[in-house]
């Protein structure tokens, strides 16, 4: 059927009602983010300063990279709760290699570690068929243990030449640290992969309906494993950044960050049922959580309340999303 014919068949829907709810579901996250920015811009003198905004995006680099990879895995219909552990492991690997062989080797070794751990996760999920949230929670423990082992049980590993290695994360371009640019580049790259490549389309197909994907010739296991590999690599990149940023690789330094990553993806509106979503949504989710934390700090609200507020936002977002999805459904 041609597009013209389709247009005549499809009844034109009045603006308002369902269409409005559908719009709210699709772009509510952007509106929420803008509203929060407006509130903090008015409520504080310091929010809209160049220094604070740089800070905001720089602090979002590591959580952003984790959430970016998590988006891919969630669109593929799985979870990866080992990204925090991979971050710590890769940080230790990076710190070890930068001491032995320099910056480039360190970043490559960290990425290789992330890819390897992604393959392991993918194998366990697709071949042993263990539900991915449980499989990756389990590998998370093993990975943290392995990272601790690499540090000889001391739990951390120190970078010798901190001054030069710190350039990787903390060098500045246009008054913003490299780590924020790296994260932004990762978002653009993953967006391009998801939208513009066959692998990207297959990830959506596998997450939406694995049986249908299999029947139409998609190698489901390979694609799922690919999603874990991409996610692992991005988490490892975050690990290299963290080692470069602080000069100390903490074996369990990323533990707990995986939940913030899932939260950012979910707040953005990517469906945890798989098959639907986008990384720009996740970017908005990451920024929303960062803006809230930043705004609260500027308003001198005790960080003790951070988690409570974050959780409430997440709950509100998922309940609203689920409600809007049903109301807007034709």
């Amino acid at each position: 059927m041609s597009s013209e014919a389709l247009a005549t068949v499809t009844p034109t829907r009045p603006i308002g009602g369902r269409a409005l709810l559908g719009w709210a579901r699709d772009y509510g996250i952007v509106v929420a983010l803008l509203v929060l920015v407006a509130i903090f811009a008015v409520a504080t003198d310091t929010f809209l300063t160049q220094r604070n905004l740089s800070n905001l995006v720089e602090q979002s680099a590591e959580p952003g990279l984790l959430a970016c990879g998590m988006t891919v895995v969630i669109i593929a219909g799985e979870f990866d709760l080992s990204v925090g552990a991979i971050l710590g492991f890769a940080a230790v690997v990076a710190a070890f290699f930068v001491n032995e062989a320099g910056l480039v080797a360190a970043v490559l070794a960290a990425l290789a570690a992330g890819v390897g751990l992604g393959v392991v996760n993918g194998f366990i999920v697709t071949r042993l068929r263990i539900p991915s949230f449980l499989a990756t929670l389990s590998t998370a423990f093993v990975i943290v243990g392995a990272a601790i082992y690499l540090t000889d049980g001391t739990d951390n590993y120190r970078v010798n030449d901190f001054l030069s290695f710190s350039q990787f994360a903390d060098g500045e371009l246009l008054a913003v640290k490299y780590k924020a640019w790296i994260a932004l580049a990762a978002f653009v790259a993953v967006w391009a992969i998801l939208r513009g490549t066959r692998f990207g389309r297959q990830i959506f197909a596998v997450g939406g309906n694995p049986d249908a994907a299999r029947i139409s010739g998609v190698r489901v296991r390979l694609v799922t494993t690919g999603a874990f590999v991409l996610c692992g690599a991005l988490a490892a990149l975050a690990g290299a950044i963290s080692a470069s940023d602080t000069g100390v690789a903490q074996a369990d330094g990323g533990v707990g960050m995986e939940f913030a990553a899932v939260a950012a993806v979910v707040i953005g509106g990517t469906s945890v049922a798989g098959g639907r979503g986008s990384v720009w949504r996740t970017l908005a989710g990451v920024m929303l959580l960062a803006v809230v934390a930043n705004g609260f700090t500027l308003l001198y609200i005790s960080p003790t309340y951070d988690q409570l507020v974050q959780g409430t936002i997440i709950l509100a977002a998922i309940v609203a999303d689920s409600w809007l999805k049903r109301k807007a459904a034709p």
Partner: protein
Amino acid sequence: MSAAAYRLGRTLRPQGGAVEYAGLISLVVLFVVLSFASSAFLSKDNMLDILQANADIGIAACAGTLVIVAGGIDLSIGAIYALAGVLSARLAISTGVDVGILAAIGAGAAVGLLNGLVVTVARVNPLVATLAGAIIVGGAAEVLANQELLTPEAASFVSVGRDSIFGVKDTIWIFAIVALVSGVLLSRARFGREAKVIGANDEVARLSGVAVARVRCLTYVFSGLAAALAGVLAVSQSGQAQSNIGGIPFVISVVAAVAVGGTSLRGGDGAIWRTLVGVLFLGLVNNGLSLLNVDPLYYDVFTGLLILIAVGAESFAQQTAARGWR
């Protein structure tokens, strides 16, 4: 399909053969090995210590089994554990021991109800719903603790976790009661049958007249209540509460116990005796690791590996069995 393939399928099928008792067999083997490996292992005191040390995980795992059998998952139990611990300690110091314990357990049930409503009424994926719940409840525990270490000293509070009846600690008795109640609910009561049907296929359950939302909700209430009880007992036993107790490691131990026992995490089937086997197995592993002088930093690695082995074996057997019938 040949008769041999059918028999192989029957033998490996989780509901009818070696794999069904894999957890139990592993437990017995580990028990025998530890008895020979360490002279300190096989004593009444060590046995009671193992039970005492794992009672909190066991209590939450028995209730958690109901959630999992009904096709759900509750990731908020670690946070509920922390909230209940902090709340009971806070109130035991300021107001009264009874008020503290009742409020903590009531809070656990209330969070469970909230989880259940988000899962059933708002129809949010249970993993995400209880994860959000975990973040909120963990945050509430943090606010309530206010970065303090609470040390309730009232004799009547700490006695709950420390006194004994017939030479066995109260905590162990409470664990036994929770296990018994959960077992009866799951395998003898209509509630358990309905939970299994829902876990196997909620559409079928709905069409055959099961109040799906109500049963699901109740499993979360029970799970929240039990997790709170576990948190109160743990604080009563140690005499101190902080907001960082419980958490995700507690959730993992509980899910591991359920999975290692052989209850399917896909829902639809399971038993409390399996969960007890899982709890004891993990308890023995930790006991064995400490007897072997393994650095506690690495204990979690073994928990992680055990989950992978146990769940991997179960799903491998299922796949093999399925092939046997074709």
